[in-house]
């Protein structure tokens, strides 16, 4: 008998915290046994936001090492080999350089409120190679921030939507290109060399009025830079290929007529390509299809979506899963931020 492919053996640990988890990310490992995560949280009793580095042991336990107080609540958090970038609700951007061996922040660069954006910075992404950081906001501005070796920052406005558009998510596609998402399930492709507006645009379903949604998260796989994965309202998850801009591939959600498995009817808060694959997955992988994607949703679901297959549910919690991250060096491990002030650590076998 063929084994059931949809089941995934998982090991789950819930680690209660005492503040609301806004976002979390794995940090590059310093050794095989020592892992760290960056957690953006908000203590609603004291109204103090914080960005804390935790060491994650195999037991598993989370031990806070050092912490930084941003100017306001963190909306987006990204990590690379050398830095942690965070954006806030009041419009500031913080870039921190952690030293994991000493357990400290070596230096920090802050762009204060209302310089880059007026109001909420809704999305932020850093180039894996470091250096360039792109931020988008509800005010419709798109900025690129360059961080020099010496810690100096330089920023320039790529676009100003003057409030006519609002962006909600952003992700680099290459050194020069990035993708943004916004209201009405719109996705825009930008090239920093071409100012004035997006290179290509998918209008989404803005015109459909009440059934239109918001893109909450975008991911782009380094091996397929022409395709972006987007997730948003009403359980919508789709892949948009720059080469076929009018035909997005719907992985989940309400589609016009076509039946795509609907994993959730609530907001999909975060999407990432799932880099954890079994041998059979590798065999099935075609060069044309969309790579497996992991999503987390408002109704407490963490699942893996594969094109043309039933979704695999990894977690079904009683509260929303607001954010998650897959360990890039050990993709069987996933951390999730749960609405009820806790962090879930999931290990797939």
């Amino acid at each position, binding site marked *: 008998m063929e084994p059931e492919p949809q089941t995934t053996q998982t090991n789950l640990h819930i680690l209660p915290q005492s503040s609301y988890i806004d976002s979390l990310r794995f940090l590059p490992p310093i050794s095989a046994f020592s892992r760290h995560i960056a957690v953006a949280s908000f203590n609603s009793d004291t109204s103090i936001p914080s960005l804390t580095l935790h060491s994650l042991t195999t037991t598993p336990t989370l031990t806070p090492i050092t912490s930084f107080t941003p100017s306001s609540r963190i909306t987006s958090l990204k990590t690379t080999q050398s830095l942690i970038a965070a954006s806030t609700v009041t419009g500031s951007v913080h870039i921190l350089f952690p030293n994991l061996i000493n357990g400290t922040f070596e230096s920090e660069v802050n762009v204060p409120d209302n310089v880059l954006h007026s*109001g909420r910075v809704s999305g932020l992404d850093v180039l894996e190679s470091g250096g360039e950081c792109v931020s988008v906001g509800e005010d*419709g501005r798109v900025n690129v921030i360059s961080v020099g070796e010496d810690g100096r920052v330089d920023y320039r406005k790529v676009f100003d939507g003057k409030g006519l558009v609002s962006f909600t998510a952003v992700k680099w596609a290459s050194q020069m290109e990035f993708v943004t998402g916004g209201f009405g399930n719109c996705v825009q492709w930008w090239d920093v060399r071409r100012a004035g507006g997006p290179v290509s645009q998918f209008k989404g379903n803005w015109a459909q009025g009440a059934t239109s949604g918001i893109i909450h998260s975008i991911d782009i796989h380094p091996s397929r830079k022409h395709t972006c994965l987007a997730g948003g309202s009403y359980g919508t998850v789709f892949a948009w290929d720059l080469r076929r801009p009018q035909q997005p591939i719907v992985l989940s959600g309400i589609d016009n007529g076509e039946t795509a498995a609907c994993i959730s009817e609530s907001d999909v808060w975060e999407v990432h390509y799932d880099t954890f694959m079994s041998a059979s997955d590798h065999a099935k992988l075609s060069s044309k299809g969309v790579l497996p994607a992991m999503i987390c949703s408002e109704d407490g679901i963490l699942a893996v979506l594969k094109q043309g297959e039933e979704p695999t549910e990894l977690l079904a919690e009683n509260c929303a899963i607001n954010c998650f991250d897959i360990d890039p060096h050990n993709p069987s491990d996933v951390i999730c931020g749960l609405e009820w002030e806790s962090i879930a650590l999931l290990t797939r076998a």
Partner: protein
Amino acid sequence: MPGLLTPSTDTSSSIIPYSSDSTTPTVYTLNHNLKPPTTPRLSISWSRGNSLRVTVFRSPATTDNEPGGKVVELNLSSEDVDSDIEMNDAARWRRIVYGSVSPFAHLQNKKNALAALDEFRRSVSHDGDWSKYVLQYSKEINSLLGSKKSSPTPLIEDPKTVLKVEEPSSLKAAWELLEIFYADKQSQPWIPEQLVDWLSDYDALFSGQVPSVHLKLVEFQAELINIQAVETEPAYWQAISSALAVGWLDIVVKLLRLHGSYQLNQLGTRETENGLVEAVAVLVSKMPRMRTDLPLGKLGECYNNKSDFMRAWEKWRAQITKLDCSAFWLQCSHNQTKENLKNLLQILLGNTSTVSSATCHWVELYIAHFLYIRPFTSGLESMYVLAQKCIQLKPISTPHKLMRLILGILEENTEVVLAECSRSFGPWMIAHATELLTAGSVEAEILLKEERDNLGGISIEESHRLVYAQVLSSHALTWQIAPIYLISCMKHGVGLLEILLYKQPAYHSQVLLKNIEICRMYDLDSVSSTAMKIAGVHHWKHGRKGTGVFWLQQARDEVRLNRIAQKLFDFVGKSISDESFEQWEGLIELLGSESKTVGGLEFLHKYRDFKKSLQQVQDGVFTDAARKAGEALILLMKNPSTPQRFWLPLLYDSLKLLNWRERPLLNVSQTNMLLNKLQELSVARLRPDFVEAGLPQEALSSVRVALATNLGRAILEE
């Protein structure tokens, strides 16, 4: 001048305890430049949690430093209330709140399912299945309140550690009491033994208020390391007899084995003495217990059948009596050991006065009665009588809250139990405990579920749930849980849920999305569309036009969308610079063409196309583009949906088309049509309701001249 409250001399008159020394109120100043006269205003509102906000607003004083108002935030913490002593850690408390959502929701679902399955049965409380669900619910909640985990036993056990010191929670203790009496129907024959276990877990809680066996043991343990020969210490024997009286047999045996006669060098000289100590220890460890099983490490022999137990009990008692009359006592030279061992035998034989002196408060005495004097007590009535007797023997002036709860339960007085739960353990406890109470008895169910006029037509159960939901609603992290409790309230639940949702700040995008999600779950479309409208208007007002229009469209708010379209018209009619063109072009794009009621939009779309082609004409000398622009102009002017007030601006914008150098772009009939329109406009201008387009004075004349020139050139060409 805002300042501290004057503490009232009569403390009983204050509703919420407020201690002025614990928190200094935060004072914010309000600076404003409003010109006098302004009416001074005072506003009082609840801020987050227990904070009360008092705002004073007035005109700024003439002196420069005086601000125009102040906001004082007072934290009215209720730390004097018992429930908060244990739960001052807010995060730990919220963990219980979060954890209890799922068991509660499950139980409600089960209840609804059972009710739907059997509509004829009016009450579901006597269903076998139902009590199983209630027990499961109770166990789940119980596990949230703290685990009964014994800390991992060390590899080499310290013989001198007789008692593990843990910090039990009185909330858990109270919940377990309710579980024993109301939820666990299967174990009802073993209630006395369950109470023995309960006391061994929670006796420490009484220590703060009254002396207790637990406290005695803790004190003795502290002394133990300094004692050489324990058997000469009265404290040692007191500790053993007290532990025996409340049935902590493992501790008794452990303590007995610390007796000096067990030491190898003493064994030879104190053989008989050691034999007697060991005999008592064996008898204690063989005590028959009327229960199914014992937790690991606890002593006794279990009998789950009454007749077997009775036989074993008689046999055990006979053994004790036999030992008591044994001749070996005469050979025992150690007087203290002899007397105190005899005393232990008296406890085992149920000597009332010995038992009474070994115990500290009435609950301990009560437990001792179950163990040694009246092991067959059953039924709440006889248990209550026994409790009364114990209270008489060991009266307490101000009884502990758990004692009050026990009495209320034994008395079968649901109202007292409710009052105790509410008074000592707060709204969480009572909202969740009602499920256990209603499962306990029909009377309680009737009492709790009966609709009452003095509560505004709702039942006690519903009123407690509403109170708890209110508590949840007051915190930023728990308000989204409140709907689960509100929806289980038949009468006022939905109404209050709507109010709760309306009160959330919809302009905060995360809150708005949460709001919409909750509305989707409970089919509250009108509430969510109101929230979306509020958000739409908020974003629009703050310059985020795109987001504003998005939410208004989501809410299908045609009225406001029309207003926006109307604004666009006004805007378009006035000035058309290139920058503003970009603005309104974006807006036209946002509003879309789908909405039929936005009638004039069709015109705006055409107008945009026309403006676009006109811009292209400006950029270079494309005759084709110019011709197209000319055609677009004619189409627009011919179209009846083009408002009259746009005629002149349109013509004025296209002056350069009319004055095209190469050749006339419009033919004779087209030019005539435009001239006629101009004439019509001149007539219309005489009407009082005509709106001027805000163009330069010479606009009309220059258009007229251009048209006339064009007409002439067109005639020549034809």
